[in-house]
């Protein structure tokens, strides 16, 4: 039984190359080629392929926008993203919208076939150079043992840290609280130390989690 593949990419020459590359593999058959998100949606409904190779940036309806519709209308088709974009945000969004794999075009010659096979097996394939992003996300989401350390801070330390979180400069904080910059710095350092945080960004993240500032 052959696997039916739909190619969606606006670049005709590349499509042709990919067509050839995939058809050269036993058991793979390219059943359709689309040059836009809308066309891909159309063809997917018509052909109900096993695998859709989807480019993210296409004129009109892009891959990222077409993805939810594709997943909804043809749930049986697995989607493998093949894209130029190595931005973490694209990867996250694609996975969130239900993509089964993410391969960069610059690695198309080497990794595409392994990716296709992995996705067809039911696995998820992510460009190895980008998996780090997901690991970082996971680690960052791990709740730090915050406990009630915030309450152990003195009132002044809390006030200073809140203003630091809001992005005020040391001078501005000093002016608001009638303290010297040096004193503000001391409060800030001591507060961060008590919370076990090392940087302003970490503090902001802590504050967002703790609800000290609104997450809007």
């Amino acid at each position, binding site marked *: 039984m052959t696997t039916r593949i739909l190619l969606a990419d606006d*670049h005709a*020459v*590349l499509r*042709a*190359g*990919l067509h*050839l*590359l995939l058809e*050269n593999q036993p058991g793979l058959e390219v059943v359709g080629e689309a040059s836009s998100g809308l066309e891909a949606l159309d063809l997917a409904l018509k052909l109900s392929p096993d695998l859709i190779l989807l480019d993210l*940036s296409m004129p009109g309806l892009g891959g990222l926008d077409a993805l939810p519709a594709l997943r909804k209308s043809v749930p049986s088709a697995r989607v493998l993203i093949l894209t*130029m*974009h*190595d*931005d*973490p*945000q*694209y990867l996250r*969004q694609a996975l969130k919208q239900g993509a089964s794999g993410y391969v960069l*075009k*610059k690695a*198309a*010659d080497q990794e595409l076939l392994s990716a296709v096979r992995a996705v067809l097996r039911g696995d998820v394939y992510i460009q190895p150079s980008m998996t780090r*992003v997901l690991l970082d996300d996971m680690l960052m989401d791990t709740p730090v043992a915050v406990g009630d350390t915030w309450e152990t801070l003195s009132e002044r330390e809390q006030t200073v840290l809140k203003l630091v979180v*809001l*992005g005020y*400069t*040391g*001078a501005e904080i000093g002016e608001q609280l009638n303290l010297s*910059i040096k004193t503000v*710095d001391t409060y800030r350092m001591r507060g961060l130390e008590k919370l076990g945080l*090392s*940087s*302003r*960004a*970490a503090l*902001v*993240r802590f504050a*967002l989690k703790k609800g000290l500032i*609104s*997450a*809007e």
Partner: protein
Amino acid sequence: MTKSYGENLLARIWIVIGAVSVRVKIMGIVIIGTLMLSVTLALQMRASVTRLMNQQLESRGISITRDLAARATDEILVNDFYDLRQLLVETQANNPDVIYAFVLDPNGNILAHTFGEGFPVGLASANWVEPTQHHHTLLFDSGQGLVWDIAVPIFNGRVGTARIGLSEAAIAKNIFILTSQVLLTTIFVLVIGLIAAAFLVYLVSRPITELVAATRAVAQGDFTPRVRRWADDEIGELADAFNAMTSELARSDEIRREREVLRRQLLEGVIAAQEDERRRISRELHDSTAQNLTSLMVGLKNMDTICDNAQVRVQAQDLRAITGQVLEDVHNIAFQLRPTVLDDLGLPAAIERLVHEWQKRCQISVDSVVHLGGKRLPENVETALYRIIQEALTNVSRHAHARSVSVLVERRTNEVVAVVEDNGKGLDPADLAVDRLGVAGMRERAELLSGKMTIESAPGSGTSLFIQIPIPYTEGENA
């Protein structure tokens, strides 16, 4: 040494005089002038009046004594000492200045005197006149003021000597009264002089005070104040000159402002054009060149798979490797120019990508939080913040020797705040000089959007860069 001490003293006096207000100076001149004049006058007048009155006193005393001597001759010759004494008493009564009178015989024995009880010891021999002399005067201090003692021989000294004492007390009293009057007049004149001086000070200081206030305003950048020309004197001229200067300043300030506005517009245009150009080239590289290269790569891969000729296959593999490298380069160039993600997904994704790349390249850990509430910022704000953060990170990698960096972008109600903070060695003025243009560029970018940039740094405790850019409050944005 002495000279330098003198100069020192002079300098010190000058400092003291210089430090007091004009009011005090003018008042001081009036007071010192009036006092010196009146004191000199009083002293001189006292001296000449005293001299004149003393001369008069002496000559009057001489004539009284001579008269006494003439009238006493008969009495002495007939030995009528009672009448002689009457004569003395009468002389004293008629001349208040006369405090005593007495008559001596040629041997110096007292014939008659006006002293009630005892005759003062030594008085008789104190003054002596030769028989041939007209008279002889002696001035002595009686213990109750100066006394002129005048001796006149009676009948050429053959009968005796007439003596009287004239007191200066009356003169002294007169002179005291005179001096008091002068001093009173002085005080009166001084009061009038001070009133006049106060008026003068008011006249002089009023325009000066006004000028000072106006100058301060001009220093603050307010070119509207004009001063009144109070009088046609030098100060009036100064007021005119000041007004002329202020209007000239206002004019050049306006020109400067216009130029600044023009410069800003030009800069804005240049920056916008530059970003557009970068966006276009980046997009082109990303969408066309990179796609073509990918096609080439895939084609070579196909060639490698299909072809049986080993030589061709090796060649194809080599070309594929090269193509891969070129693709990577093109990709990097496109990213450096302007990441497409900034336009496609917005600032958070672009910052994340930037931080990711920078971290990999510099081996410095970056913690970034971009918290914009899921809404896109205006495009020019996004671009500006991206470029500023990019520049800030470049500076950190160049100079800071930091181990970690925080990048923070937060949206507040009507502004967006970005902070780039490192834990490096702190700002070095030398580095700042090298990156002067970079820092100026960041500040300029922020200011073009009515924002501001602040740098805080302390040696050894890192550098923090703060950017605040106002953003329009969008309706329906109830957090």
